[in-house]
């Protein structure tokens, strides 16, 4: 097949009607521009909102859940082996929230090639005392450096120096909400009481803003050593081991494996935050629906213009057929016209979509909840651009298909006779 000739003829027909062709192409350009900008923006938002939780959530978390012993004495008695046992008011007992042998576990984890990094943690429910008021809350004992590397801890310390937590003993970073309730400032001292009644004065070195207000109203951070001291525990005391994997999708499998291996509870990120996937999914869906709707509208534009062109070019089609071009050749010519409009319009749409994304990226977006964000978030994933151009080509192909088929079926005898 002589594609050069087909392309040559298609181009000539296109140029002969360049004004209409341009309008059709602009329709495609507009759709693709909106599609790219919308997907980029929506996904930027997705990343941001996911980041709010997912950035700070370990992929796998090892801990000991407080729960009743699954092996109750009655189950072990030979007398009742074949009976169904009803036991009411079983109490949890003898379970330690401490992860035993945590140092050995961490050593083992560090050698696992799937693990990107890990950070130990101690969670301790506490009361903050300030004057006459007591506020319930929680202090997390963290390894500041590991926590910052893996979970961006320092990004969220909006006031103060996060490393002071490590360098200054008996220091604390308060959640912004906690600080507001306690009316304390950097350098002040807060009294913290554990559930066992032990009290320790801690110096405030910073404020923490996660973007989730309820969280900031209860949560504070101290170093591992300070927290161990607060709880009167040894320096091997760890309640959680937070693990970040190289591949997030492996989390459920790895969690199961570790639960077996280390005899602790293990929770994966997918189970912990399933609702966030739903939100992301809906936003992405909306972008696609809007983009495709715009493309369909543009497709109708192309359809109309091709139909008009075929109507005007009946003589041309008849003469091509009379001089030896087959119906298939004629169909290819008109499909070529449609695809050219789609490709050029789509390509321009990608460029404009990118420019519009850059523009959105410049719009200031300041919110107290998101301290690290200064402008609207935009995602520049090249996959959107590939999908955009593929959609443009598919739509124009479909829009060109029926007009092209009509053109290929033109009977030259009727046209030539009709003169």
């Amino acid at each position, binding site marked *: 097949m002589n594609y050069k000739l087909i392309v040559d003829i298609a181009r000539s027909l296109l140029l002969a009607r360049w004004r209409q062709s341009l309008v059709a192409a602009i329709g495609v350009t507009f759709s693709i521009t909106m599609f790219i900008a919308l997907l980029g923006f929506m996904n930027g938002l997705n990343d941001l909102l996911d980041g709010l939780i997912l950035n700070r959530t370990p992929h796998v978390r090892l801990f000991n859940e407080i729960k009743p012993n699954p092996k109750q004495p009655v189950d072990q008695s030979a007398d009742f082996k074949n009976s169904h046992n009803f036991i009411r008011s079983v109490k949890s007992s003898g379970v330690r929230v401490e992860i035993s042998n945590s140092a050995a576990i961490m050593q083992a984890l560090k050698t696992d090639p799937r693990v990107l990094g890990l950070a130990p943690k101690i969670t301790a429910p506490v009361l903050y005392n300030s004057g006459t008021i007591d506020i319930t809350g929680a202090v997390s004992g963290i390894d500041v450096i590991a926590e910052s590397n893996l979970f961006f801890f320092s990004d969220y310390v909006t006031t103060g120096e996060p490393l002071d937590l490590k360098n200054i003993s008996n220091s604390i970073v308060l959640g912004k909400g906690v600080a507001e309730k306690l009316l304390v400032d950097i350098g002040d001292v807060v009294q913290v009481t554990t559930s066992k009644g032990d009290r320790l004065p801690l110096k405030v070195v910073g404020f923490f803003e996660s973007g989730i207000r309820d969280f900031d109203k209860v949560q504070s951070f101290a170093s591992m050593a300070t927290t161990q001291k607060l709880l009167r525990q040894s320096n091997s005391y760890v309640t959680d081991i937070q693990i970040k994997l190289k591949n997030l999708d492996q989390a459920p499998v790895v969690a199961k494996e570790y639960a077996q291996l280390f005899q602790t509870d293990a929770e994966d990120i997918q189970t912990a935050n399933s609702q966030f996937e739903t939100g992301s999914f809906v936003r992405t869906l909306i972008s696609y629906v809007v983009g495709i709707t715009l493309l369909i509208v543009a497709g109708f534009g192309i359809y109309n213009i091709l139909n008009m062109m075929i109507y005007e070019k009946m003589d041309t089609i008849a003469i091509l057929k009379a001089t030896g071009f*087959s119906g298939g050749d004629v169909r290819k010519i008109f499909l070529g016209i449609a695809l050219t409009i789609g490709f050029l319009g789509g390509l321009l749409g990608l460029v404009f979509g990118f420019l519009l994304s850059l523009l959105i990226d410049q719009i200031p977006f300041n919110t107290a909840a998101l301290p690290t964000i200064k402008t609207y978030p935009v995602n520049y994933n090249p996959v959107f651009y590939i999908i955009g151009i593929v959609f443009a080509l598919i739509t124009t192909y479909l829009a060109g298909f029926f007009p092209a088929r009509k053109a290929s079926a033109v009977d030259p005898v009727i046209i030539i006779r009709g003169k």
Partner: protein
Amino acid sequence: MTIRNQPLIMTQTVLQSRGINKYFKDPVRVQVLKNIGFSVNQGEFVSVTGKSGCGKSTLLYILSTMDTDYEGDLLIDGDLMRGKSEGQLARIRNEKIGFVFQFHYLLNEFTVLKNVMLPGLKLQKYPEAEVEHRAMERLKTLGIAELAAKKANQLSGGEKQRVAIARALINDPIIIMGDEPTGNLDKKNSDIVFDIFKQLCEEFKQTLLIVTHDQSFAGNTNRIIEMEDGQIIHE
């Protein structure tokens, strides 16, 4: 110019029709062609005449393979047309038939030269440069070489028809068919076109089958086929 290598046997049959019947079913079934049978030999200049409405154009569309809805046999270059696909027929039109219409039918999007080249480019027998060279040769033969770069819609009627003849010649067809090619031209241009046909026939042994109701035109051809009411009444 060398239009084609002439076979030694001059009586070779180029086109043959056998018992061709054609009906139009709209609005009632009417038979417009009745048992048309004749053949055209290599090098002949044949004219088909008859009153308007007697079926000349209808016959020519069938002979040119554009109309496939008929009874009877059509052989071009000894090859039976029945049962051939649309694509195969397009190929035969491209390669073996040159068509000249009453209303010029050039493509206004293209230059004169490109109009002449298009069927040659489609055939792909020669590379593009060679097709261009051959197109120029034919334009020169027809005395319109200086029009090559013009757009088709900038030409006069007589010029357009000469371009159409050049286009019909580009692939060295075994036969040129014309449906009243001078019907839309004044006397002077009609004479020019006729002289071209005559020249093609005499100098290059080009076979021609031309429908006309111009008696003086027909009178100057080798052979006249006269039709009436869808039948050949006189040869």
